[in-house]
Structures are given as structure tokens and as C-alpha cells.
């Protein structure tokens, strides 16, 4: 399983999670998804600590981050990843319902690789998720150390 290109999905909202997974399912990407429910857990996984101390999946090929999460929010996860030499090579995509200028600006300042606003229309939503999954998990060539 270690050679599998895995997607990390950080999402606190159960319904959004279900919809996102459904969308990924539709494009046969769901079994590669690592689901974490907040920013703290996402960092635990990435640093192999806490309940993910023994994770064997290695680093994901892409991290899909919700902006608003309990404990540690998406921007903070992004900041820590981009300031860590090991993690900063991992692409990060913000998937959020916020189109606020300050969120966009802050994300790009911290070095986000893409920023996607979740559409209300489910069809558009699944298209967006599919494109993200397909691009980062299939088409994009990950950095050499990303899939160790």
C-alpha cells in the first residue's frame, strides 16, 4: 500500500465529508483518502505522532484542507506545513466555502498550491473534487520524497 498515491482530506463537517467522499467515490478515488477531522489531527498524521504515531501510509500526495476547523484551523496547518522543510514539498489545496478576500490572500501568502470555493451545486461540486483528485493524485508527479 505504500506506493499508493494517497490524498489527505481534513474536514470537520460530517455532511461535507460525506459529500466529498461521495464525489471522490464517483471517480474511484475514495479508497486512497486519509480522513482527518481537524487541523490538530492533520498535523499529528503528518508528523506521525499521537494517535497516528504508527501510521504507515507515509506522506500524502496532496492535502485537501478545510479553512474553518476546530482546534487548529486550515490556515495554521498550512503555515506549519509550509514552514517545515519536509512538509513544504507536499501540495496543499484549500477547499472552502469562503470567498473572502482576506482568506484567499492569507492562504496564498502562506504558499497554498490551489484555492477552491465549494460550489452549492452538487454537480459542480463533484466536478471540482474530481478534478482536484485526478490532477494531484493521478496526473501530477509528486516530489521525490513525497511517497516514501
Amino acid at each position, binding site marked *: 500500500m505504500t506506493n499508493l498515491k494517497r490524498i489527505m482530506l481534513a474536514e470537520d463537517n460530517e455532511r461535507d465529508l460525506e459529500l466529498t467522499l461521495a464525489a471522490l467515490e464517483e471517480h474511484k478515488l475514495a479508497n486512497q483518502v486519509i480522513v482527518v477531522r481537524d487541523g490538530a489531527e492533520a498535523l499529528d498524521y503528518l508528523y506521525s505522532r499521537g494517535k497516528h504515531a504508527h501510521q504507515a501510509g507515509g506522506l500524502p500526495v496532496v492535502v485537501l484542507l478545510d479553512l474553518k476547523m476546530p482546534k487548529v484551523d486550515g490556515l495554521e496547518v498550512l503555515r506549519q506545513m509550509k514552514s517545515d522543510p519536509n512538509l513544504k514539498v507536499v501540495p496543499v489545496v484549500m477547499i472552502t466555502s469562503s470567498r473572502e478576500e482576506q482568506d484567499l490572500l492569507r492562504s496564498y501568502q502562506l504558499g497554498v498550491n490551489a484555492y477552491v470555493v465549494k460550489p452549492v451545486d*452538487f454537480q459542480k461540486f463533484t466536478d471540482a473534487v474530481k478534478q482536484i483528485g485526478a490532477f494531484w493524485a493521478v496526473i501530477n508527479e509528486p516530489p521525490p520524497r513525497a511517497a516514501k
Partner: protein
Amino acid sequence: MKVSLGSKITAGFAVAVLVLACVGVLSYLTTTDLIQAMNSVARTRETLEQLESVLAMTAETETAQRGYLLTGSAEFLEEYQAISKNVGNQMTKLRALVAENANQQESLNRLELLISERFAALDDRIETRQQHGLQAAASAVALLKGKVIMDQIRVVVSEMRQEEERQLLQRQETSRDRSRHSIGIILTSSVLACVLGIVAVLLVRRDLWLREQAEKRLQDSQALLQSILDNTPAVVFLKGRDGRYLFVNRQFEQLAGIPRDQIVGRTAFDLLKEELAQAASDHDLKVLQTGEAMQFDETVMYPDGPHTHLAVKFPLRDADGKIYATGAVSTDISDRKRAAQLIEKLNEDLERRAASLEVANKELEAFSYSVSHDLRAPLRHIAGFVELLTNKAGEKLDEASHRYLKIISDAAKQMGTLIDDLLVFSRMGRTELRQTKVDLNALVREAIEGLQHDLSGRNVNWKIAQLPTIQADPSLLRQVVVNLVGNAVKYTRPRNPAQIEIGCDDRHAREFVLFVRDNGVGFDMQYSHKLFGVFQRLHRSDEFEGTGIGLANVRRIILRHGGRTWAEGKVDGGATFYYTLPKQDAAN
């Protein structure tokens, strides 16, 4: 080089005095010369008389001698002796008179010799008479020796006389010449001195006149100054170093309530309350010490109570730069003070209001943030799960159920669009304007290109005027143009051909009035006030799609650019939408 009038006058008088002095000296010399000439004429005359007298006496001695010779009377002898003695005296006088003339002296020597020779002969005959009697004496006379000598004497006297007369003539000539010369010089010099004197007098008179004029001007300017100082609203006064008033203007008089001649010479302590006088005199002292103009706030008592004055105090210096007085111009600034206090209070109010506005703005931001996050999520869920439900249970559901699910899904999407529009609208009010030069013609072209999808299959007659280049935020202004042109395209959909006119009224000084006119469905003017409101629509959405946010955005953007918006229309008679933008120089 400019020579002062004073030195010119001094020089004029000096020359005149010098000329007069020369005239004086010359006159003295001439007069002395004349006197000398007169003296020598007198002396010549005396010499001539003396010569005559010597000659006459010599002849008389002969007569006396002859008498003695004839009579032998002692009386004649005595006479003879007296006369011959007298001749000697006369000769001594004569010698003194001709002492200066060598020729005459020589002639005199000869004359003396001849006379003594003559007297010797006479004495000789008298002796002959005394010893040898009348006969012997008579024969001696007959020898005629005496007559020869006498003739010689006469010749010498005549020569001497001629010499004297010649000299007299010469002296008179010289004296006359010199006198004539001197008189000429004296006359010329006197005339010159007179002219110089007159010139000097004229100059002095002119100087005096100029002085009078200057004094008159000085008086005029003093009167001018006085009337300016009396008519200024400020209180103006001068004080000597000892604090005594030297000058006060009318305002000071009125404030003090006494005439100025009772103020001048007194000090502030005589007129004001002690503490106010002390403050004023401290201020004066500061000016005297530093030698610089200064400003002070001073309290002045008015009939209605104390007023605050702004007093500008300054030192007055004499020609040597020494401060001899302080001047003051004191203005009532109570109103200004009150106004300043009012402004301060208003500013505080304004700051408080701005602070509360800022809080409100922050709340609004938080609200729109949560709207964008929290309201959209449930909508997404409704739409998402309806979709999932349709996929999962689609086959089991009847047509009506499918329709209901579609309505739920559409409603959720529509609400999503409304929320998005609302967020755009709220952002519009908050984002900063980034103004640059914007070519409206290009914006209109781009807007029409962007509407190609809606224009396909449509027959539209465009009438687009030349539009100005203005100063604006290009992305915001693009939304205005897209909205208005888009509306025109949308609401002319039932028209064939549609007429759309885009133009600009450039006749106003401060603003451009731009408009988009169409021959579309128009609107009822009684609802025109609703046109630019948020989510206000005058048509059903199944007639013309839209959320009702477009014109609200247009108004908001134009207001932020300092312009206005309005519309004119008629049901089924088309509509014209106007907006204004300030002209460049007016916008600056």
C-alpha cells in the same frame, strides 16, 4: 556721486566769502597805492614849492646884500644873514624831500655847491665893502660873477623842477592804470560774489521748501497711520521701557473708557486690575529681554466680562538699534477660542462616532464572513444530498417526487446565488478604490463582447458615441458598464430590432453625464425609486432572470466614485439609465 544740498550751500557760501575776501584785499592794496600816489604828488608839490622858495630866497639875499653894499647899514646886513641862514634850512628840507631820488640828489648837490659859491661871492663883497668901502664893492659887482652863478642856479632849479614834474606825471599814470585795473577786478568779483550769494540763497530756499514738503508728507503719513490704527479692530499701543503708554489707538481708548491724553504717560497698573497688569508687564519685559516679537494670550476686561486677546508684542528700536519701547497689536480671539473649543468637541464626537462606525463595520465583516461560510454550507448539503437521493432512489420515485426534488435543488442553488451576490455587494462597499485612467470606449467594447452569448440570434442596432477617458477603478467601473449594457440587452429581448444607445453629455463643468438608452420593456416611473435597491425587481424572474442586485451594485460603485445614478422610463417605452462621474480636475 551725490553731493548733499548742505555741502553745496556751504561750498557756495565759501566761494562767495573767498571772492569777497579777495575783493577786500584788492581794495586795500589799491587804496594803499592811491594814498601812496597822493602822498608822492603832495611831496612833489612841496619839493617844487621848496625849490621856488630856495630860488626866491637866494634872490632876496642878493637884494639884501645890495642894500648893505649901497648903504652900509647894519639893518641890511642882518637881513642878509637871516635869509642866507634860512636858505640853509630850506636846503635841508629839500634834501629830505628828494631823499629817494638819486638824480635829484645829485642835482641838489650841484645846487648846494652853486648856492654856497654864490654866498661865498656875496660874503666876499660884503667883506670888501666893510674893509674897502663902497667903491671897491661896486667894482666887484660890476664883474658880473654873481649873475653867472645865479643863472646857473636857475638852470639847476629848472632841471629839478622838470624832473619832479615828469615823475609826478609818471606816478599819476601808473596810479591811474592800477586803479582802473583794480576797479575792474573789484567789480567782476563783486558781481561774482553777488551771483554766488543769490545762488546760495536760492539753494537754501529750495532746501527749506523741500523740508517743508517732507514735513507735510510726514504729517500726512502720520495722519494716515493714525487713521489706520484707529480704524483697525485690534487694540494697538506703544509703551516705553518704563511701562508708560506712549501711544494708544481708538480701540484702546474705548476699552479703557477714557480719552487717550489721560492714558499716555500712565502705566497698565493705573488702568487694569493688578494681576492683569502684572501679566501684561511680564510679557513686555520678556519682549524687552529677548528683543524679539512674541505672542501672548492676555485676558482683557470688557463690559460683558473677560475676553481672551491674542497680543503680538514687539520691540521698537531707535537708529542705534537700542530698544526704546514695546509695541502691541492685541486682537479679541474669544470667538475663535469658543469656535476652537466647539471644533474640539465636535471632533471628539466625530471620533466617537467613527469608532462606533468601525465597530459596526467589523461586525458587518464578521457577519458577511459567517454568511459566506455558515449559510452556504447547509445549502450545499441540501443540494448535495438531494442529488445523492436522486441518484440512489431515482428509479423508485414518481414524476411528482422528482419534480419536488428538483425544486428543492433549484431553490438551494438560487439561494446560493443570492448569498454570493449579497457578499459581492457587501465587499464592494469595503474594498479600496484603485483609481487609474479608464477608457470608457474600451470598457463598452469589452462589455458587448462579453455579451455575445446573449446577443446570438438578436437584432440590435447599436448607437455608441465617443466616450471620455476618466479616472476610476477599472474593475468596478467594468461592472457598472456590464450591468447597464447587459440590462439593456436583456430588457430589449422582445424587440426586433432592439435599439441601444450609449452616450455622454459633456456639457457640464464638473461631471460627465453618461447614459445607456434602450427601446426595451421600460418601467413604471412610480417604482423608479426601487430600481437601485438591493434585491428589488420590477419584473418577475420567469419574465427576466436576475437577482436584483445589479443596479444596487451600479449605484454603490458610482456613489463611491463621487457620482450619481438615476433612470427614466415608461412601461413598454424603453428606459434610460444615467450615471455621472466627476471630471478629472474636479475629482482631484
